[in-house]
């Protein structure tokens, strides 16, 4: 089973991101789960979203997990939220930031002993450039596709088009560019 935890702010699209990821993973024949911890969360409040992916039906409904991947889509949450909570020795971190990896890690003590498992990408800038708004969820998916090696980029893009089909073509194209750029730029 692969478990993923998203750190985000309400309005940045982590819940949609987690559900889109679930939707696409399901097309490969796997079983998925996507949920979030929010209730009366206001826009801007920190929230967490979760994915589980497995070959057999997922019957664990606990919120508690030891994530294989931690996806941080708000740059400030890397500093203020407990992003290493319940992690494992193999947990990989993908963090949205305009800083380079060395500088980011030097500023966050909890990441210093897991440097080789930290990946950075500027999802905010990419979404501003390509979609015209700060919606860092789509580029984060591109970065995740690269880091996890779970899909070929083309397969993912094709399926993402289906997930986004109710949106205008301009938005779909922007998302495709954002995912592709993050895939190429994550390091």
């Amino acid at each position: 089973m692969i478990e993923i935890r998203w750190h985000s702010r309400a309005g940045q699209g982590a819940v949609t991101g987690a559900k889109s990821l679930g939707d696409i993973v399901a097309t490969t024949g796997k079983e998925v789960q996507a949920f979030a911890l929010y209730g009366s969360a206001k826009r801007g409040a920190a929230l967490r979203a979760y994915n589980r992916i497995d070959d057999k039906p997922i019957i664990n409904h606990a919120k508690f997990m030891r994530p294989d991947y931690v996806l941080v889509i708000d740059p400030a949450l890397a500093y203020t939220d407990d992003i290493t909570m319940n992690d494992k020795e193999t947990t990989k971190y993908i963090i949205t930031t305009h800083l380079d990896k060395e500088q980011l890690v030097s500023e966050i003590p909890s990441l210093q002993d897991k440097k080789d498992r930290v990946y950075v990408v500027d999802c905010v800038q990419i979404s501003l450039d390509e979609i015209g708004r700060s919606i860092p969820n789509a580029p984060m998916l591109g970065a995740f596709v690269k880091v996890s090696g779970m899909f070929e980029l083309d397969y993912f893009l094709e399926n993402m088009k289906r997930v986004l089909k109710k949106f205008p073509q301009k938005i779909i194209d922007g998302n495709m560019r954002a995912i592709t750029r993050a895939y190429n730029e994550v390091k």
Partner: protein
Amino acid sequence: MPKEIFELNEREVWDGNYAASQAMRQARVDVMAAYPITPSTPIVENYGAYVANGYIDGEFVMVESEHAAMSACVGASAAGGRVATATSSQGFALMVEVLYQASGMRLPIVLNVVNRALASPLNVRGDHSDMYLGRDSGWIQLDAFNAQEAYDLALCAFKIGENHSVRLPVMVHQDGFVTSHTAQNVYPLSDEEAYNFVGDIQPVDDMLDFSRPVTYGAQTEEDWHFEHKAKQHKALMDSRSVIDEVFAEFKKVSGREYKRVESYMMEDAEVAIVALGTTVETARVAAMELREKEGIKAGVVAPRVFRPFPFDMIRDALENVKSIAVLDRSSPGGAMGALFNEVSAALYTTPKRPLVTNYIYGLGGRDFAVEDAIEIFKEQKANADAGHITTPIQQFSGLRGPKLGFFQTKRGS
């Protein structure tokens, strides 16, 4: 017939709310009267969108409260329509008066209950307080453990409630957020399969049949009230065989099997957890882990049908187990948990009378992790080995602060 065709894939990724609303669409619900409340809101919201966009030829009735919502459902059902709605928590509480009216009038309304805590303190998250509040209301109560089941059971609900030997309203329960807002793989039936399974509604004594006027909810006083209530109770008890038939028929169209009591790994189980909702599945993960890693023969038993309570099947499922933990996700308000009491009563009529303990857990959405279930199983194992209950009979799982427990056993020790 609906004007528009809804495009469905064989495999969808839906949350429990969306799954339930799709079942409402496929069953072609004629009238939904609703006053939306978190976390059940998307069920009625989606139905409204299906009506507005031509996916269903139905009517969405906007009302000023949940009391009015259920009242409008009563009217529409008495008129002869297929009727459904959804609610949670405080909304359910406000509906309660009319729930008893609906069951007493023998109206086959379907109510999707997305389980949520009752205030105070205010809390939008899931527990079973509202579900328990409905347990004497005379409704059939089906319990889903995940989104797929919320869909499946919603379809079964119409077929059970509308059966002429049943004629009772049916609730379909799912856990707030943990099911309602968790997306997972769901394998829906096609519209045609689903509708053919549910079938056309055949109203009984419908008020719109002007050639044969009838009265609903007449005053009875001591002259007839008791006979009416006894007949209603008998109808609930007798619905067990109809529920079994509907589940068997559903298996034929879907391949998915439901039983009034679900048992997992119980063939040789020495200890068991009895629970409702998503906890049933999380406890199964714990049981598998204990079997693999520690050789503890753990199993899980769950009432799929909370009302009519499966007294007979619960007894059969558990009578050979040594120690049983019954989990209640509702504040018992000065008593043992309701599920504990009912399971214990059933087991008291067996020759071996296994040890039974009660755990209150998960109130207001407190997480129930695999680790919590493992701890509970291990306490049962200790009871089984000792031959008597080694803990207080009622305990609290997942509660912060000092350990809380009530009553000691008078057997064995």
